[in-house]
């Protein structure tokens, strides 16, 4: 299937949104702005998911990341008083080394993708997947992982509460 120009343009716009959001999330000085930019990246990714016909994953992405993770992040920012921009630099002392390593990772990944370009399939698979199928798969084939995730989420919730909870006795000392 030759990709039509409209699709390509849409893809470029969404990718630009995602990448810009990601860059802003990493580069901005104010941590709250970073969190908001991160939300932008998340939304961009969710839209990319929708472009890939993964409706369920896309909406789940918005619900979980924008509705929960982003909120958690801003809560953490406010609770740790990180919202004021620090006087010292926001980048660590070894930022250059980090940047080089990250660039190297991207280079390797991009190289790998481009090298395998001829082997990649061009046409998307045909069947459109309905939410019903996903539900059936979750309750059938994937029911054990689902249960484990449920247990994991419960454990994580309890763990997070315990870790973040105020220890009364220590303050009393």
């Amino acid at each position, binding site marked *: 299937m030759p990709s039509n120009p409209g699709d390509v343009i849409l893809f470029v716009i969404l990718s630009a949104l995602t990448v810009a959001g990601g860059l802003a999330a990493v580069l901005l000085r*104010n941590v*709250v*702005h970073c969190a*908001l930019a991160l*939300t932008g990246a998340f939304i961009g990714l969710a839209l990319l998911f929708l472009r890939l016909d993964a*409706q*369920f994953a896309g*909406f*789940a992405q*918005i*619900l979980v990341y*924008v*509705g*929960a993770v*982003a*909120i958690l992040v*801003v*809560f953490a920012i*406010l*609770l*740790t008083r990180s*919202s004021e921009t620090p006087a010292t630099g926001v980048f660590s002392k070894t930022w250059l080394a980090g940047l080089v390593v990250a660039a190297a990772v991207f280079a390797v990944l991009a190289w790998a993708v481009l090298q395998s370009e001829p082997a990649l399939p061009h046409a998307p698979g045909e069947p459109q997947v*309905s*939410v*019903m199928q996903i*539900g059936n798969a979750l309750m059938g084939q994937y029911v054990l992982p689902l249960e484990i995730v449920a247990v994991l989420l419960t454990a994580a919730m309890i763990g997070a509460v315990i870790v*973040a*909870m*105020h220890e009364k006795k220590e303050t009393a000392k």
Partner: protein
Amino acid sequence: MTSSFAENLDQIFVLLKHWIVALVPVPLQPLVGAVLSVAAIIVVFATLFAIAVLMERKGLGRMQNRYGPNRVGPLGILQPAADGIKALIKEDVVPYNADHVVHFLAPIVLVVVVFMGYAVLPIGRNMTFVPMDAGLLFYFAMGASAELSVFMAGWSSRNKYSMLGAMRAIAQMISYEIPLLMTSVIVVMMTGSLSLDKIAEVQNQYTWGLPHWFVFTPMGFAAFVMFAIAATAETNRSPFDLPEGESEIIAGYFTEYSGFKFAEFFLGEYVAMLSISGLGATLFLGGWSAPLEVLNVVPSWFWFVVKIMTAMCVFIWMRGTLPRLRQDQLMNFAWKFVLPMTLLDLMVAGLWRFMGEGILRWVVCSAILLAAYVIGGRAGMKREQFGPRSYRYAE
């Protein structure tokens, strides 16, 4: 002849849209169709917003033994127009210290996100803007995004009251979003679909002239009650209006907004109420289906509007009746009563599925829920020994 006329009346907006779309060249047709639908939704619900505000002001006035607005136009019915004009021409004051970009974006995000929710609501037969497979999930994704705009508004204002209001609002919205989702899951379990069209369609059946609305099943009714509570909290309405508790924190997260941005928040809040009423109506009250089989001659969109406006009346009535909760009561109520009851309801819904047809499941499910609600209610009514409250900070 009459039935055909009724059908045409039912589908009048759809036919109108098709007619207009057919007038433009083929490549532009999808675009024009989308624009028409969006415009229709915005116009209709903005109008309903105006009516709702007027209703609220008049109704509250009646409940508080005063007149309410009665100067602009006959009986004051032009008051919303006056309010709108006033908001538009008012000076837009932004605090000096505020984070201008975020401050500007917050109300826009709210309004956009709230209107997005309408994309999946079936307003009438064949009248869903985007009939999506995972419509319910989309709706909740949009609802969750609204929290972010609240945070943006509160944080960017650089005002303690705004921040407090935002924190309250977010805590409250997250807490009540879970029961809201869970109650919807009950409906999803009963229909086996996340599509709101399908959910409305399933309820559009009649036995002895009575509709198959989910509110008329034991767990549907219980879920509806919980949904109503959670929806009230989710839209920050009285008695859960702590985020804007004017006696404590002025106006909460939109304290520092004025003029048109304030109007946007106001609009967002009411449109969110209308939309969540619409969701409730779709999930539990049969969406656009008529309450009696014989009333099917009346167009479906009419019933939808009637249902959401009735819900608005209930919102107003509650606001006029109930006192505001305290923050800890609010949280306790959400996590220790609403959520467990909803989970129980979920299990009952499962039981209902597995018990198969017959009168027995009605009896058993009703009995379990009734017992749980009575016991839970009695336990909750008991006066607890409130000691000095302790708060936890991340110090």
